[in-house]
Every structure is written in C-alpha cells, then in structure tokens.
C-alpha cells in the first residue's frame, strides 16, 4: 500500500497566468511503505519545490497529496525533513537543537525520558563527544548529522531528504551515505531522497525517478535498482546491474539536457516581477 501518493500535482508561483511561473506540472508519484526512493534532477529543475510540497511547507496549485490515504495539511511530525543547508539554530547547542524536536514531538514524555532519547539519537549519529557544542564549532558533515538526528528523533514514518549531502566533500559524503543507510535499515522507514548525484541515488535507493528540468518540470520514467543490500561501494563499480542502470539513467538525463538546450532558442517571456525594495520601508 502506498504511504505517499501524489496525484496530478501542479505548482505555479503565479497561478493567475496559466503557463508563466509554473514550476511543476502533472507530477504523479507513489511511494510504498518502507521503500527508499530517490529523485534525481538537474539543479534548478524544481526539486526543492517538490520537497516543500511533500513536507507541507507549500501547497500545490492543483492536485492532491495523500499521506497514509489522508490529504496532508501543513507540516507534520510524521514526515521528518533533512534540509539541504542543515538549518540548525545557531544559538542552540547540538543537544538543544535535538531537544527542541523531542519536546514538540513527545510533549507527554518525562524530562528524563526526553533526555535519554536525545542522548540516544545524538549517539546514533556519532556526536556524543560534541553534544554541548554550537553548530558553528562543527564541520559541515557533523552539522548534517545533527540535522539527521533532529529529523529522526521525532520518530517520523517517512524521512524526506532534500540534497542532504550536496554541500559536503566526497569523503564525508560517502561516510554519511553509509550512516544514513544504516539508520534507515534499522527500522525500515520510508525514505525519499532528492539528489543531483546519480551514483548516490544508485547506492542508496530502491527506485530512481528522474525529474525533467523545469519550467513545468515533470517526473520521467522510473528506474528500479535491483542490487541486493547491504551494498558495497567498491564492489558496486564492477556490478553489471549497477553499470547498466547507471548508463541508462545518465543517458536519459543527457538526452533531456540536450532537449532543453535545443529548445532554448525558443523565446521565453519573462515573468513581470520586480524585486521588493526594502530600503524605503523604514
């Protein structure tokens, strides 16, 4: 049974005019419970918009999003979000950042239970030694781990990751991929990963869906990743299935890229927007 269903989702930032500012067009997506789905796409193709629709920060212009067969209304603790830029609160320590989520998600817990839960999750992401440090004292990878802990501590049924490792170096990235997979395999939550890295998607996901570049982005055909878990990163490079799927996806994306490039001679009318001038407001 699908835990998340997107039906004919369109998102436009300027709904008054039919085609202008339309970011997403006719998106249909089903995610099964316990599944790890990756959406890959070029930067600027509307990935973050899609994520914000699913986590409830934005509302679609048309279409419905069902989570456990119920239309979603705003954000929810059942869907944990890991943002691209960590979004930790810089005036709180690691402990306090995670504690804020715990207090909101489990208000009925006693102080001691909350404290134990916070410590358990911080330990899970391997940051016990830095639990009382501030985000600015941590490296990028460590910050993203805090962000992971903060999302998971609420015990969400689904984790939504918006290019979580995009700002990290290759080595840290690899380590964190392993850790996220390990945590995911522990209790098999549903996971949605948005990324621009095909290898990352292949390594982590069960199913990969390319997002055609915007404006009017829509989802392409899905690619199943039939590689047994746990996957071994070094062995993966010689795996025929891996090579085959990888080539197929890259070929598809390249074709899309060329298509967009050849289309770009068409004249686009720019939206009639003016930047807001804050200078005279005060």
């Amino acid at each position, binding site marked *: 049974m699908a835990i998340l269903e997107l039906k004919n989702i369109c998102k436009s930032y300027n709904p008054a005019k039919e085609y202008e500012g339309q970011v997403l067009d006719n998106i249909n997506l089903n995610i099964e419970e316990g599944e790890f789905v990756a959406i890959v796409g070029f930067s600027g193709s509307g990935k973050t918009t899609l994520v914000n629709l699913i*986590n409830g920060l934005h509302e679609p212009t048309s279409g419905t999003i069902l989570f456990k067969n119920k239309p979603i209304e705003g*954000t929810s603790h059942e869907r*944990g979000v890991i*943002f691209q830029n960590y979004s930790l*609160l810089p*005036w*709180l320590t690691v402990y306090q950042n995670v504690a804020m*989520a715990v207090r*909101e998600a489990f208000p009925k817990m006693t102080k001691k239970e909350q404290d134990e839960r916070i410590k358990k999750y911080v330990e899970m992401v391997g940051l016990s030694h830095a639990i009382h440090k501030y985000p600015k004292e941590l490296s990028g990878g460590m910050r993203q781990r805090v962000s992971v802990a903060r999302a998971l501590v609420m015990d969400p049924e689904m984790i939504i990751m918006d290019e979580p490792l995009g700002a990290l170096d290759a080595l840290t990235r690899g380590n964190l991929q392993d850790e996220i997979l390990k945590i995911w395999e522990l209790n098999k939550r549903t996971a949605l990963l948005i990324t621009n890295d095909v290898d990352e998607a292949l390594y982590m996901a069960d199913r990969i869906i390319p997002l055609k570049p915007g404006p009017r982005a829509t989802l392409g055909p899905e690619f199943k990743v039939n590689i047994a878990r746990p996957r071994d990163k070094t062995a993966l490079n010689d795996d025929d299935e891996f090579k085959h799927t990888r080539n197929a996806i890259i070929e598809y994306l390249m074709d899309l890229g060329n298509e967009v490039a050849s289309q770009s001679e068409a004249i686009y009318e720019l939206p009639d927007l003016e930047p807001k001038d*804050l200078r005279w407001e005060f």
Partner: protein
Amino acid sequence: MKEAIIKVFKKIGLGFMEPLIRLLTNEEPKKNFKEVLKRIVAPIASIFIFIGLWQMGSNSLYEKEAAYKIETTKINQGEEAAQKLKVCMESGEPKCQPNTLPSPSQVFGAYKKLLADHKRIAADKKAFKEKTATLNESREAQGLKPIVYTGRPSFVDQILTSLKTVFAGFLLAMFIAVPIGIILGLNPTLRSSINWIIQIFKPVSPVVWLLLVFMIVKTMNKNSDSDSSFLISFISVGLCAMWATLVNTIMGVSTVDKDYINVAKVLKLGPVQKIFKVILPASLPLIFTGLRITLSVAWMVLIAIELLAQSPGLGSFVWEEFQNGAMDSNSKILVAMFVIGLIGFALDRIMLFIQKMISFDKGAM
C-alpha cells in the same frame, strides 16, 4: 595563563593590549613590537597631537581676546586703565583673564577643583548625616519626615543623577520598543498601518518631546507633591531614544532567515515557542544594535533635556556654568564635555559587552 588574561582583556574591550602582553612575555618580539607601535603607541601619540593643537588654538584665541579687551579698555577708560589691565593679565590674576577657549592645563585645573569640591561636599553630607541621625530617628518615631541634606550637589552627584535618568529612560525605551517592535515585525498588516506614526515621530526633536511630556505629566501629576522634573526628563529621554530600537526590532523580526522559519514549521512549534526559541534569538543581533543606538541617543539628548527641564544633572550643570560666567566656567564646561564623552563611550562598550555575552552572533561589532 597568558591566553586567559588576553581573553579577559578582549572581553572587556581592551583587545589592543594583546600585543603588549605578548611582547612582555617575549613572544615573537619583532612582530609584536610592530603591533604595539601600531595599536598602542600611535593612538597615544595622536592624543598628544590633539592636546598640542588644542593648546595652540587656545593660545591664539587668548591673544586675540586679550588684545581686543585691552583695546576696548583703552578707548573707553583711557591709556592708564589699559596698562593696568595688561599688567593684571600678565600676572595671571583670574579676575582679569579674557573669556575664551580654555587651555588643556586650565581644564585639568578645573577638573581637580571639581574633584576637591566633591570631596568637600561629600564630607559635608556625611557630617550632616551624623549630626541629624539621632534627630531623624526621633522624627521617624513621631511619624515625621526625616531631615535631608539640601545643599548644592557636587559634580559627581550631577553625573550620578544623569546616569540614573538615562538608565530609567533607556529601560522605558526598551520596554516600549522591543515588545511593540516584535508585534509589528510579526504582523505586516499592523506594520503598514502603523508605519506612518513611526515615520512622523522618529525625526521629532528632543525639545518637542520634552514639551509634549511636560504638558501631559504636569496635568497627571497635579495632586502629588513629588518633584516631576525627574519624571519629565526620563520619559522624554525614553521617547526620543526608543525609535532606533523600534525600527531595528521590526527589521530584525520581519527578516528572520527563512530557513529558521521553515525549521519552526517542520517541528510544528507553537506561536510562543516560535517567538522565544526562533524569532527572538535570530533577531537579537539587530535588536541589540538598536539598543546600542538607543543608549547613545539617550545619553546625547539627556544633556539637552536636562538643560531645558531644569532637572538636576550634567545638562543643568553645563547650563548653570554657562549662565554664571565665573572665571573658570569655561574650563568646567569643557570638563563636563569630556566626562559626557567618556561616559557615553563607556556605556557603548558595556552594551557591546552584554551583546557579545548573550548573542549567538559573536562576530558583531
């Protein structure tokens, strides 16, 4: 140990002492010697240059004023009187000194005099208190008001009164501007509907605020016999100075980083939690910048307001000195000027220190 000392110095705003401490402990002598020259010796040299220029300026003004004075005496009272005045001037007799910009040494003399005056008055006060102690006790037992010292306040007393007024005004400004700023920052509709009030009242001069407050307080305070001058001056100071905090708070609250707001939404924080855990800490640097401006504006307008409201303090001290025209009045006014400047500087440093203590944005200057 050394690093700890340097850290303390930096905390209290004496970071420029760092190279000197390092030089004294023989750490990278060459580099630190250069730093000492740059950060300690050069500023001290500039102080001496300033005093030198002042001395030169006051000398030439003195000469001009003296020549004019002798000339007019000659015309009005004849050659003999002029000669007498010249001799008197050269002898350094205070009563025939020309009235002009005093020299640094005169100002320093006035400073010592004010200090001595303060010591005398303080001793006087203490003696008075001892003398009336038993009497006041018996008066209190009878339910009468105690006898208090009503003599002339010393210069230091005036400073303390001014500080009290500015502090009360600052607190008033803070308790009005920060909550209103938060409410307006959170609510764009309210903000745009009230914006005109801010725009109109922000540039109003301290004098006008004083008169407005005077009109209101005078009537409200009709039935009480308490002295309303303190009330009037601190309320005016608060009203003049609160605008910087108000505008900065609105700005800070309404432009909180969208990422933080998204976090608050995703965690489903309630409105109170959202304000106190996310919005306030995020806008604290801007609020504090506003508070710093408010404090310095408060200190600046205080002098003008005290001067007009006839409430005791540095402002009225300056005004009285200007009015009484004694020999050393000008020097005393300059002493007051330096004291005002130094206290203003110290207040700003204190605010910066508090800001660094409680704000996450440690890089703020």
